């Protein structure tokens, strides 16, 4: 328990550092979003309008210190400022609108990739020397191919040539959004291709990571002993070998869960998916600082949360971490 509390304290400090850096970086750059807008309009705006815009964007001036406190105060209320691209929508509601799509698509695809990849890795290590060894080069090949290319190929084959699956959007425009069977079905139907892209692009890491650790674990005495005990192969493979081999992989999994929030930019663009990735791209294109800042903040907090989750998993799965070092 003390271990977890200590970790939690560490993450709180890290989160504070991330927030502070997030605050500082845009302010260290010359100019501000309003100056940029003014520059774009060739300066044909009267000073009152500029002042009003600065107020609207929360650029009230004052010392860096007082700005910092205002920033923290706003953050505590969940206010991230207003987006420039989608003015006057608040950044928080832009992110709030995109985040569920990304979490749903990329999150579920990441979990699927992990479960299938880890399973394949376990079996490939257990039956090494058989045809299953060919999984490795096959998945590595798929990973080596640029994933947006995989996405385009999938769109070409299943979307355009065969017309089996939709090629863009998150749901059909002819269904009413809401918690209805129709809508959820349409969502799942639209998620198939992008999800496959993400799984294909990331599964080799999982297979390879798990297989390699598993092969090492299989050489451990406790696995030999489990076999000598006359346990079923399935039990030896999962409860003894895989159970231990999975520990190092938990970290990489939870970390990738953290990056889920950042979206899968290219996949979302190819499939015109309304997730964080597309929003981030739009923000970058339009120099929409408040929006970028908001997204980066959410990403860093998500990575921290994922790290904490990894620690929790470790404590749950590995009794050795429960002891004070």
């Amino acid at each position, binding site marked *: 328990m003390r271990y977890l509390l200590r970790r939690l304290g560490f993450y709180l400090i890290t989160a504070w550092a991330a927030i502070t850096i997030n605050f500082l970086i845009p302010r260290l750059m010359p100019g501000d979003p309003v100056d940029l807008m003014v520059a774009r309009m060739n300066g044909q705006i009267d000073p009152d309008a500029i002042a009003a815009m600065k107020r609207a964007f929360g650029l009230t001036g004052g010392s860096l210190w007082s700005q910092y406190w205002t920033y923290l105060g706003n953050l505590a209320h969940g206010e991230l400022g207003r987006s420039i691209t989608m003015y006057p929508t608040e950044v928080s509601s832009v992110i709030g609108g995109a985040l569920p799509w990304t979490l749903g698509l990329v999150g579920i695809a990441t979990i699927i990739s992990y479960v299938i990849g880890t399973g394949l890795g376990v079996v490939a290590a257990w039956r090494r020397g058989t045809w299953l060894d060919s999984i490795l080069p096959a998945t590595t090949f798929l990973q080596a191919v640029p994933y947006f290319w995989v996405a385009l190929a999938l769109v070409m084959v299943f979307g355009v040539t065969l017309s089996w699956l939709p090629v863009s959007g998150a749901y059909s425009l002819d269904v009413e959004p809401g918690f209805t069977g129709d809508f959820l079905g349409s969502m799942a139907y639209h998620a198939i291709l992008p999800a496959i892209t993400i799984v294909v692009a990331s599964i080799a890491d999982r297979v390879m990571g798990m297989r390699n650790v598993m092969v090492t674990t299989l*050489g451990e005495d406790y696995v030999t002993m489990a076999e000598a005990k006359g346990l079923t192969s399935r039990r030896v493979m999962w409860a003894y070998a895989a159970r231990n081999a999975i520990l190092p992989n938990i970290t990489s999994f939870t970390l990738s869960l953290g990056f889920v929030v950042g979206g899968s930019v290219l996949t979302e663009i190819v499939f015109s998916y309304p997730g964080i990735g597309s929003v981030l791209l739009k923000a970058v294109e339009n120099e929409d600082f408040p929006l970028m800042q908001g997204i980066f903040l959410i990403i860093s907090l998500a990575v921290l949360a994922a790290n904490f989750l990894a620690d929790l998993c470790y404590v749950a799965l*590995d009794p050795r971490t429960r002891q004070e070092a």
Partner: protein
Amino acid sequence: MDYLTGSGAVHAVDGVSLTLRRGEILGLAGESGSGKSTLANAVARLLRPPAVVTAGSVTYHRADGSATDLLRMGKQELRRFRWKELAVVFQSAMNSLNPVTTVGSQVDDVLRAHDRSMSTVERRDRAVELLRRVGISADRAKSYPHELSGGMRQRAAIAIALALNPEIIIMDEPTTALDVVVQRDILREIKALREEYGFAVVFITHDLSLLLSMADRIAVMYAGQLVEHGAARDVHDHPRHPYTLGLLRSFPKLRGPREELLGIPGTPPDLRDLPPGCPFHPRCRFAVDACSAEQPELTEVHSGQWAACLAHGPSYGPVPVELSAGGSR
């Protein structure tokens, strides 16, 4: 038993034939790499590729008189045989216990795998009883291996081995990783448990002097071959093979007359490239020309004591006094 390597097969164990009688302790001694553990793992069918058994048999005689060859058992039959008849205690209990589950549950799963009729409570009681029998208190059943000391872990491993009351327990250097005091306690425990349960033990060690206090019979291996075996007393008092003599003389004795520490010069041979004739001759003090030409057969030198050395053959001349009943200790 061969190890398949890039440069062809290595005969790790070759032409070894041993009998383990019911309830006896058979000591298996030899230097590292002499094939002791390979032999033991082959008997338990635990060899992993690249190790393969190319020829041979392991005949197990049940109490009811029926006999089976372990090497020809089917998967299911082997699974039922394991632990019920033949259990194994590995060298390092640090590594032979699953680090992520409790000691109790590691007793539990072997009970569950072999006896489906036992209830959860019965299994828990049995686990606690077994642990207590080897000197681990009941509340330790909920401990993880890393929470136990080295000696405790080895005791737990022995408790797990006892779970199904096996006929044979193979102990592969069970005390090598422990300090001498703990080592002595564990050896005493093993002997006491043997008295109580009546299982037979194959005790593997590189420490021949330790076997003298433990084993009923001793077999000595060198370069994958059996060089000498016989009753522990005989092997100790009158070693008939120069290698055994060297092993015995490489430990200082605490009691009795002073004697020269001989040791064995040189290093064990490369199994891929064994010297011709007797594999031990390059390191042997008594070697003659014939030793590099002729491979000695295992012959009965004394009643029940066998040695593979030309010194006991007709071509050698008088047997060196150290290798005869008159010499040594």
